[in-house]
C-alpha cells in the first residue's frame, strides 16, 4: 500500500454495522481495510473501515441505504 495515498475512514456506532459494510464491500470488490479506530477519533465500536480517498463515491453508493454509518471522514 502506498504511503502517499490519502485515506478516509467510515465510522460506525456498532461492530455489526461495520461487519455488514465489510461484507457488502467485499462482495462488490471494493478495496478497503478494517482497522482499529485511530486514537484521536472517538467511536463506540472501536473498529472502522479505511479506504483510499478516490473510492469515496463508489463506497457511498454501495452502502447508502443498506447500512447505518455514523460518518465518513478524512484519516489524518
Amino acid at each position, binding site marked *: 500500500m502506498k504511503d502517499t495515498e490519502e485515506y478516509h475512514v467510515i465510522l460506525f456506532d456498532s*461492530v455489526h454495522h461495520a461487519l455488514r459494510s465489510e461484507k457488502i464491500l467485499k462482495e462488490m470488490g471494493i478495496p478497503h*481495510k*478494517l*482497522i482499529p479506530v485511530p486514537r484521536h477519533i472517538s467511536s463506540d465500536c*472501536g*473498529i472502522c473501515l479505511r479506504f483510499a480517498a478516490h473510492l469515496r463515491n463508489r463506497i457511498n453508493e454501495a452502502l447508502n441505504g443498506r447500512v447505518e454509518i455514523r460518518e465518513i471522514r478524512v484519516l489524518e
Partner: protein
Amino acid sequence: MVKFIDAKGLACPQPVLLTKKALEQENDVTVIVDNEPAVENIKRLGNHMGCTLHTDKQEDGSFQIHLSREAGKSPAASLDVSCATGPLVIAISSDRMGRGNDELGYVLIRSFIHTILSLEPLPHTVIFYNTGVKLTVKDSDVLDDLKELEKKGVAIIVCGTCLNYFNISADLSVGIISNMYDIASAMAAAGKLVVP
C-alpha cells in the same frame, strides 16, 4: 556542572530513575551502568528528554553514558521503562483473538495485528502457528500489515508443520517457514512474550 552517577550494580529501573532525576537538576549528566538493558533504557530516556547522547564502553565492561540536555527542551510527560532483558516476541496462535465468538475474534485479531505496527519499540519477532498461519498466506486481510512489519525489520516466522497441515504452504506470502526448534528458541529467548 556535570552531574556524575554511578549506577553499577543497581537493578532496573533504578539507573534510569536516577538519571531522570539528575537531568531535572542539571543539563549535563554522566552515568555509569553495567548492563545493556540499562544502556538502552537510559538512551530512550535521553531521546525522550531531548538530550544529545554519547556512550563509551569501558574496559571493565561497564558503559559510560554522557547526556547533554539542550536548553529550552522540557521532558515529555510519560516514559515507559522496560526492564525486560530480552526482545519482545508476539506469538499468534490462532486466526482469532480470544475465544467465544469467531466473527468477533477475527475482527479483533486483524485489529491487533494492525496495531502492532504502532508499538514502540516494535517486536523483535512475530511467530505464527496453528490457525494463526492462515494470516500469512495469500489473500489474507492482514498481509499488508505483516509485509510492513517485515520491511521494518521484524522477523516473521511461520510454522511449517501448520502450513503443511492446512495444505497452504505454497500460498505463504510473508515471513519465513520455520520449525519447532526456531519457534521454541525464539519464545525461550524472549524478554516478554505476548500471546493475544
